[in-house]
């Protein structure tokens, strides 16, 4: 008995952490990431890989349905930790391993915060929510279904394959599919929590297991293939918090992208913009403070971009540096530390090969969409934006102990003295850049723009179509 308990404590000493963060809760998220990095808690790749679900920021700002879906997907044992502010991070996460070790399926017994999956009995975890479901692959049943075929026997049914939605848009096609009995199922993707929990429902006949079937449309290569509706985000490794993309994909090529936000609530200026906003409001702000915050933001973005590119080592170094910058370490050592990293990242030929030609955003498009900041200066592809971040971070690091006063309007993602927040412009150009890209490219393009959704605080709901 004692042996079992010790084994459990050993096993869950470093639980895998799945972070769901409200975009505005940057400071808390940074505290969580730092905690995980210093203690060696790995980040969970997916709900299936998670032990601790950390809800960062208030969950009643629209994260609730996301959290509910995740809760149904995480395999037991797991616990949920709600982190409202940075100071609660250390004590709450410190307690997590013991809670996990003491977890028991009976909620009345000791253990986690009463958090067990709702349907652990059926074992039907993994509703389709966060992870895009591949429903079926062809427009099954568009002609009334295959059941009839089987019942009528094999008389060699010369079923013409009807091609009703060849020219119709995908909305039309969406309603075709499943023919008669699609019932009240929404197409996947447009609505969180629609049928996600449908694992246990009685299903209609037109859809399988409550999941809609794929429909077809002409594709890039001149073939007419299946279209799937796959959501990306809001919970993925290295994904900007609060962003959600509803993608229509063929294979892994994006045909249509809709940008949505999750958990954006009215709050103060974004953590990353604070010094600039104060300067704009007329306060006297030191150059160093602005530069420091901007450098940390760029390092944060670089960390995510490198993580998406699958380069764990430099991504980790960026996180280390970012935390050092925010701790107020002196400029000299920081610059020294950054130099080899910058040389390695900006000089990497393979990284260049992997990012060139993706998400090209030229100067005219930037002006047109109102994009400013690093993306506009780079005026190029993912690789150009990465280079720009590296350059800009190096400059800002060098200035991070500058004590002079200055009026600077440049936030990490663009000018903050305009009517629209810079991240809104970034979100606006996203759909156009994403159409035609493959999923891996989508991840890189999003990471290379890295919109900060906390900047949208005054604009509660954003939807950009493309």
């Amino acid at each position, binding site marked *: 008995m004692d042996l079992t308990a010790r084994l459990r404590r050993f096993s869950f000493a470093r639980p895998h952490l799945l972070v769901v963060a409200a975009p505005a809760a940057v400071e808390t998220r940074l505290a969580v990431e730092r905690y995980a990095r210093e203690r060696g808690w790995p980040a969970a790749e997916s709900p299936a890989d998670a032990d601790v679900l950390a809800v960062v920021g208030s969950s009643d700002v629209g994260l609730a349905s996301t959290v509910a879906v995740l809760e149904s997907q995480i395999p037991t044992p797991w616990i949920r930790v709600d982190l409202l502010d940075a100071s609660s991070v250390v004590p709450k996460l410190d307690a997590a391993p013991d809670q996990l070790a003491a977890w028991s399926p009976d909620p009345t017994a000791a253990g986690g915060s009463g958090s067990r999956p709702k349907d652990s009995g059926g074992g039907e975890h993994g509703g389709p929510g966060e992870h895009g479901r591949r429903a079926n692959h062809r427009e099954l*049943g568009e002609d009334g279904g295959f059941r009839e075929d*089987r019942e009528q026997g*094999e008389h060699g049914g010369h079923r013409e394959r009807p091609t009703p939605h060849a020219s119709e848009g995908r909305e039309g096609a969406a309603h075709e599919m499943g023919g008669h009995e699609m019932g009240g199922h929404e197409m996947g993707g447009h609505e969180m929590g629609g049928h996600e929990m449908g694992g246990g429902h009685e299903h209609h006949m037109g859809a*399988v297991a409550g999941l809609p079937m794929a429909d077809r449309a002409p594709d890039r290569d001149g*073939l007419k293939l299946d279209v799937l509706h796959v959501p990306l985000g809001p919970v993925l490794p290295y994904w900007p918090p609060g962003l959600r993309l509803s993608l229509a994909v063929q294979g892994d090529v994006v045909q249509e992208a809709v940008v949505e936000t999750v958990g954006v609530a009215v709050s103060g200026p974004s953590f990353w913009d604070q010094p600039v906003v104060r300067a704009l409001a007329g306060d006297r702000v030191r150059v160093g403070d602005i530069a420091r915050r901007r450098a940390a933001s760029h390092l944060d973005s670089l960390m995510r971009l490198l993580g998406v590119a699958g380069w764990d080592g430099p991504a980790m170094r960026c996180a280390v540096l970012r935390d050092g910058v925010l701790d107020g370490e002196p400029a000299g050592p920081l610059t020294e530390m950054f130099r080899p990293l910058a040389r390695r990242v900006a000089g990497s030929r393979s990284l260049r090969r992997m990012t060139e030609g993706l998400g090209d955003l030229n100067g005219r498009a930037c002006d047109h969409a109102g994009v400013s900041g690093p993306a506009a200066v780079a005026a190029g592809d993912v690789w150009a934006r990465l280079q720009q971040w590296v350059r800009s971070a190096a400059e800002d690091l060098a200035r991070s102990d500058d004590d002079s006063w200055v009026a600077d309007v440049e936030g990490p993602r663009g000018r903050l003295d305009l009517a629209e927040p810079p991240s809104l412009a970034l979100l606006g150009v996203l759909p156009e850049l994403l159409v035609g890209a493959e999923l891996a490219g989508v991840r890189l393009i999003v990471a290379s723009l890295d919109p900060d959704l906390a900047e949208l605080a005054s604009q509660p709901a954003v939807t950009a179509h493309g």
Partner: protein
Amino acid sequence: MDVVAFWLLAVVAVVSGMLVFRVDSMARATFLLLASFLCVAGTMLLLDLHYLGALTILMMTVEMAVMVVFMVMFMMNPAGLMPMTMVHNRRGALILSVGAFVFLAAGALLVPWPIRRGEPPADATRQLGESIMEGKMLVMLVVGISLFATMVAATVLATGRGRYDRYGDDLTRSRPDDPVPGGVGR
């Protein structure tokens, strides 16, 4: 031991071959076909045909891995989530194939096959290699050339875009206009 192994492999080969046309899921059908091939490769290993056995495993695995891509791409209902059949003239096919089996099996059992001449060589692979590099070289050359021709012809047939799509109507574009750029950057 060998006999038991043979029967096991033979039964699995035939049963999975039959199931190929019975299951609804195209993914499963492809891999049942692969199972059939792997069992046949196993019987070759029993006959001391090590090289050809391993080669069959290798080639058929790659072939089925590619096949499954096309199965999923072209077939309705590749995951078999709904019951379906897609056959025509089933009765005729059944009669013909049972007839073929009876005919072939009768031949196999009734024809007085010649007595074996000589023993298998110690190294069957060497025998094969020497023969295709000496007496049967022409055959292998033809095979090689036709495989190459197949690669070219299949690619031409299957691609929808030619060089005019890539380099422009007068072939003057310096960089091809591809939906996805390759890694070499030509």
